[in-house]
C-alpha cells in the first residue's frame, strides 16, 4: 500500500486494518489518497470542487464494508476533507472511518473530516469512527470531525464513535434528522488524559412518525483534561428519543454534561439521563480482593466502562 510502519500501526489502531481490506476502501495519508479500491456495488469517486470523496453504494448491496481511514504523520499538516456517502435503498453495509495522527514534531497536526450520510429507505448502516493520536512532539494532535446523517423512511443507522487515546483537542459535531420509522443508535466512548480537551455535540431531529434515537455516551476524564458533552433531541411528531451521558471523573478533570430535550408534539416521548462521578470505592475493593492492585483495578473498571 506504500505506507510506512508508523502509518501501518495507525491503520491498525483506527480501523483494525493489518492488510488490504475486503471490499471498497480509500486510504488517505498526509492529505493525499494512498490507496483506493471499488467493489462491484460500491464506487468511490474523488470530488472535483473540493478535497474529499463521494462513496456511492448501490441499492440492495448486502453485507459489504467500506473502509476510509485517514492517517497523518507529517507535523504541521492541516487536512480537511468532505466525504459524502450515498447509501442506496435497502442496502446493508458497514462503514469504517477512523482517523489517526502521529505527531513527532513541534507543529500542530489537524484533520477535520466532514462526513455526510444520505441513507435511503430501509437501508441499514453500521458506521464506526475511531480517533487515535500518538507521537512525542510538542505539536498538538487536533481532530474536529463533523457528521451529518439524513435518514429516509425505515432506515437504520448505528454509529460507534470512539476516541480513547492521544488526541489533544477535539470538537465533534454531529447532526441527524430522521424520517418516519427511522432508527438511530449512537454509542460514544471517550477518554481524555493529560491536558486534553474534548467537546461532543449531538443534535438529533425526529421529524417522522415512529422514528427513534438513542444517544449514549460513556466517558472517562483523567488528569487535567476537560470534556463537554452536549446532546439535544428534538421531537416534532410521535417519536421516541433517549440520551444518556455517563462519565467517570478522575484527578483534576472537569466534565460538563448538557442534555436538552425539545418536544413539539404531545406524542413525542423524550428521556435524558446524565451521571458524573468517580470510580466507586467498593468496585476497587472487590477487584483488589481478587488480587489486583488499586491501579490494575482502576484500569479494568475504566476499560470495561468504555467497552
Amino acid at each position, binding site marked *: 500500500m506504500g505506507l510506512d510502519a508508523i502509518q501501518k500501526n495507525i491503520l491498525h489502531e483506527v480501523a483494525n486494518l493489518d492488510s488490504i481490506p475486503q471490499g471498497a476502501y480509500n486510504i488517505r495519508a498526509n492529505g493525499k489518497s494512498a490507496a483506493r479500491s471499488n467493489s462491484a456495488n460500491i464506487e468511490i469517486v474523488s470530488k472535483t470542487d473540493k478535497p474529499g470523496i463521494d462513496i456511492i453504494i448501490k441499492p440492495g448491496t448486502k453485507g459489504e464494508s467500506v473502509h476510509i481511514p485517514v492517517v497523518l504523520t507529517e507535523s504541521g499538516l492541516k487536512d480537511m476533507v468532505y466525504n459524502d456517502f450515498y447509501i442506496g435503498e435497502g442496502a446493508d453495509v458497514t462503514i469504517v472511518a477512523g482517523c489517526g495522527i502521529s505527531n513527532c514534531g513541534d507543529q500542530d497536526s489537524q484533520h477535520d473530516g466532514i462526513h455526510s450520510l444520505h441513507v435511503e429507505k430501509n437501508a441499514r448502516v453500521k458506521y464506526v469512527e475511531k480517533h487515535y493520536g500518538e507521537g512525542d512532539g510538542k505539536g498538538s494532535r487536533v481532530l474536529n470531525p463533523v457528521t451529518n446523517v439524513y435518514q429516509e423512511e425505515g432506515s437504520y443507522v448505528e454509529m460507534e464513535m470512539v476516541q480513547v487515546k492521544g488526541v489533544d483537542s477535539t470538537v465533534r459535531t454531529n447532526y441527524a434528522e430522521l424520517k418516519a420509522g427511522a432508527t438511530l443508535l449512537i454509542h460514544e466512548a471517550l477518554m481524555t488524559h493529560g491536558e486534553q480537551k474534548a467537546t461532543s455535540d449531538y443534535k438529533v431531529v425526529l421529524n417522522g412518525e415512529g422514528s427513534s434515537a438513542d444517544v449514549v455516551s460513556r466517558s472517562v476524564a483523567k488528569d487535567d483534561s476537560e470534556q463537554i458533552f452536549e446532546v439535544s433531541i428534538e421531537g416534532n411528531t410521535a417519536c421516541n428519543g433517549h440520551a444518556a451521558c455517563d462519565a467517570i471523573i478522575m484527578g483534576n478533570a472537569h466534565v460538563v454534561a448538557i442534555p436538552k430535550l425539545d418536544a413539539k408534539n404531545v406524542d413525542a416521548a423524550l428521556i435524558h439521563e446524565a451521571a458524573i462521578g468517580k470510580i466507586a470505592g467498593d468496585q476497587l475493593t472487590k477487584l483488589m480482593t481478587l*488480587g489486583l492492585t488499586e491501579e490494575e483495578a482502576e484500569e*479494568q473498571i475504566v476499560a470495561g466502562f468504555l467497552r
Partner: protein
Amino acid sequence: MLEIKDLSYQVEDEKEKTKEIIDHLDLTVEDGKFIVITGPNGGGKSTLAKLIMGVNTLTSGKIILDGEDISDLNITERAKKGISFAFQAPVHFKGIRVVDLLRLAAGEKITTIEACEYLSKVGLCAKDYVNREVNASLSGGELKRIEIATVLARGTKLSIFDEPEAGIDLWSFQNLIKVFENMRQEIKGTIIVISHQERILNIADEIVVIENGKVKKKGSRDEILPGLLGTPAAASIACEKLGGDK
C-alpha cells in the same frame, strides 16, 4: 492456620465516643475446617470477616496466616497470600462482563468453558450469563451467585463468605449448601462463613458465636448447635430472618 490475636477494631460514633466493634478478640482456625460464625446482629461478625480480608483496618492486635503476620498487608497482598472474600452485598460494574470478572478472579486466561463451569456450580445457566455485564440488570440473587462463583474461581486456601444466603431465593439456597460441600472436596481449603442459617450451621465442623465483639462460644457443631437452638440467640436469629436480611 489462621490465628487472630487480641484483635480490636474501634470506631467513633456521632458523639465522638470510641466504640469497640471488635474487642480484644482471639480466634484460631485450623486448616481445612468449615467454620460458621454466627451471633446476633451488630455483634461484629461481618467486621471480623472484613478485618481478615483487610477491607477494614484493625486498630490493634494481630492476624497471622500460616505463621506469617499479615496485619499490615493491604487487600491485594492478602488476596495474593490466598484469602478470598464473597461480599454480602456484591457490587456491580458497568461494562465488565461475568466472564471478565471470573477471569480476573482465576488470575489467568481461563477459557469460556471453564468460566461456564464455575457458573454452573452456582446454579446459573452459563450460556445465559457468561457474556452479560455485571450491572444493575442482574437481580440481587444473580449477583450474589456470581460473587460466590468468583470465590470458587480463585480456589484459595482461605475463603470467607459474608452472609451468602442473604438475598438468595429458596432454589439457590439448596444449591448453596451443595456449593459448600463441593468446595470442601475440591479446594480442600479453609472456609469461613458468616451465617444465621441453621442449614449452613448444620454442615459446619465448628461454630463460633460472636457477641459484643468477642467470641462468646466456640466448639464443634454438636457442642454449640443444640445450645443455639431454643436459646435467646436462636430466637433473635429467627426474628432477624423474619425481619429480612441485614
